[in-house]
């Protein structure tokens, strides 16, 4: 057993470890981030948040219209307010997910 052999085998092991880690690391990341498959999950989330805002806006506007007899004006107004709510949903979710994981 000579001295110089040991560092080289350790270096070798280090390199192999690093290789193995870099090979496995990307696999684990996307699942941790919360999206079902990276961009697709994120897109799904944003789309649902946006549409939910608009849908609730239109529904509330329609109800108020029926109650107050102002068809269709409040629905139009609440469509835009709902769109605003949808955007604020998305912005808030995005801000939360950016500060949370790290």
């Amino acid at each position: 057993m000579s001295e110089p052999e040991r560092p080289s085998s350790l270096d070798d092991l280090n390199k192999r470890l690093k290789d193995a880690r870099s090979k496995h690391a990307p696999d684990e990341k996307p699942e941790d981030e919360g999206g079902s498959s990276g961009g697709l999950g994120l897109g799904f989330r944003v789309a649902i948040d946006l549409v939910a805002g608009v849908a609730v806006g239109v529904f509330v506007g329609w109800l108020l219209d029926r109650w107050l007899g102002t068809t269709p004006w409040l629905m139009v107004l609440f469509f835009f307010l709902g769109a605003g709510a949808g955007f604020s949903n998305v912005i808030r979710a995005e801000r939360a997910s950016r500060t949370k994981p790290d």
Partner: protein
Amino acid sequence: MASPLEQFEISPIVPIQIGGIDLSFTNSSLWMTIAVIVAGGTLTVAAGRGAMVPGRLQTIGELLYEFIAGLIKETIGSEGRKYFPIIFTVFVFVLTGNLLGMIPYSFTFTSHIIVTFAMAIVIFLAVTVLGFVRHGTHFFSFFVPPGTPLVMYPLMIPIEILSYLSRPISLAVRLFANMMAGHILLKVIAGFVAAMGVFGILPLALVVALTGLEIIIAFLQAYVFTILTCLYINDAIKLH
């Protein structure tokens, strides 16, 4: 060939009609009952032994407990511990439903919007009541984002209220859409296997991969549903 949408059909098993309202025990009810029995049974057995060195079932129970306890601590803090039972129940029920749906010929009740919406609206109402109990009328200040200039109040308050009202919808739709889309995709691609003859081996491989992905999504969507519940409770307790 069977339609890929056939899997979502509701069929009554025990027809019950009370006062013109259809209260039949359907296949959906059946699978919800199975989910409760499976989840309850597993956890009862898991908790019953209490061995120093946990067996398989006890490990599942402990993992679930620690996972949810950690989630609550992260999102709500130590104050959230008293909401552990409801959050744990929501997670286990949704997860069991999602996973039971992965068994061939079973029924995925979480792929029905009325089921997810019922859960979402209960959570939404409970969280709203919680907010009012904790803060009284001061809870209304939740609808005014901090730092809003007075001029913007007429615009921001309706937007915030609508944004708040859209919560149960996005909560319900997220779970339902993910489960439904995944199950339709599986059935459509499985349909190609028979249609393509020898080359059906390609979609078959894809179905195998997608089944794995669906199981991941089953866990992920249960997790998302739970973490959003935690965040809503956190909002109601802390207001911003």
